[in-house]
């Protein structure tokens, strides 16, 4: 294992700390926001920029360590950008459906004529 130069270690360290701060920010938002739909936004901090930061740090670190491009960490943000929209979309619909059922103050159905639940 050859020693890494300082010029690689500094960006890797900065990227990791930045990603963890973003994740913390998301958790604070998840805890502090008042309304369910407001709480849906902060987790996106970790799944987008946070994941990219960690993946970039991993690519930088392993590529220098093995002195060849090691790109497989790049798959994580790609995978997340495919799976996270599906869960977010479904959760948002769930929130709307359950809030409408409970009679809370949310916008009415956007498509006219048909109601939710009859698919």
């Amino acid at each position, binding site marked *: 294992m050859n020693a890494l130069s300082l010029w690689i270690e500094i960006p890797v360290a900065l990227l990791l700390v930045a990603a963890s701060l973003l994740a913390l920010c998301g958790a604070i938002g998840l805890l502090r*926001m008042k309304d369910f739909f407001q709480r849906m936004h902060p987790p996106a901090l970790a799944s*987008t*920029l946070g994941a990219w930061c960690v993946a970039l740090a991993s690519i930088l670190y392993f590529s220098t360590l093995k002195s060849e491009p090691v790109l497989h960490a790049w798959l994580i943000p790609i995978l997340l950008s495919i799976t996270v*929209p599906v869960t977010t979309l479904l959760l*948002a619909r769930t929130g*709307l459906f359950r809030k409408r059922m409970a009679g809370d103050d949310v*916008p009415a159905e956007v498509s006219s004529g048909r109601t939710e639940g009859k698919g």
Partner: protein
Amino acid sequence: MKRLFPAPWLSLALWLLWLLLNLSISPGNLLLGAALGFFAPVLMAPLRPRPIRIRRPGVILRLLLRVGADMVLSNLAVAWGVLNAGRRAPRSAFVKVPLDLRDANGLAALSMICTVIPGTVWSELALDRSVLLLHVFDLDEEAPFIQHFKATYERPLMEIFE
């Protein structure tokens, strides 16, 4: 050629995915990945109702760069909004965006863009695909937001997919 490779881009992407997951470009892995890229789209073709036609690679590249830049900026904006919430509560609101985009693949791409950019959550799409209900984390004014959203994300997607 068309029958052998119903989705050439999907084949290429699967091949690259295989090589990345195995982290090697040895002849065996090159061959296995090529087999995956060849057989998976052929076997999956009956599942897909319509072939995707993608045009204008220049527009795709510009849209990707735009989304990347917006992702970083809105990440910082949402993080600041969260930390600053004690002093100034974020003005969250639902926005109804009228859509001109009808293509299913284009709409899927639009929903990915909405989720990748923190601060907007795709909430509901009308069954006839004419209206989209978005939840926005911190909204200044509704009309400029809708105009900006349609001009930056919907217009390029319409050029690519329709």
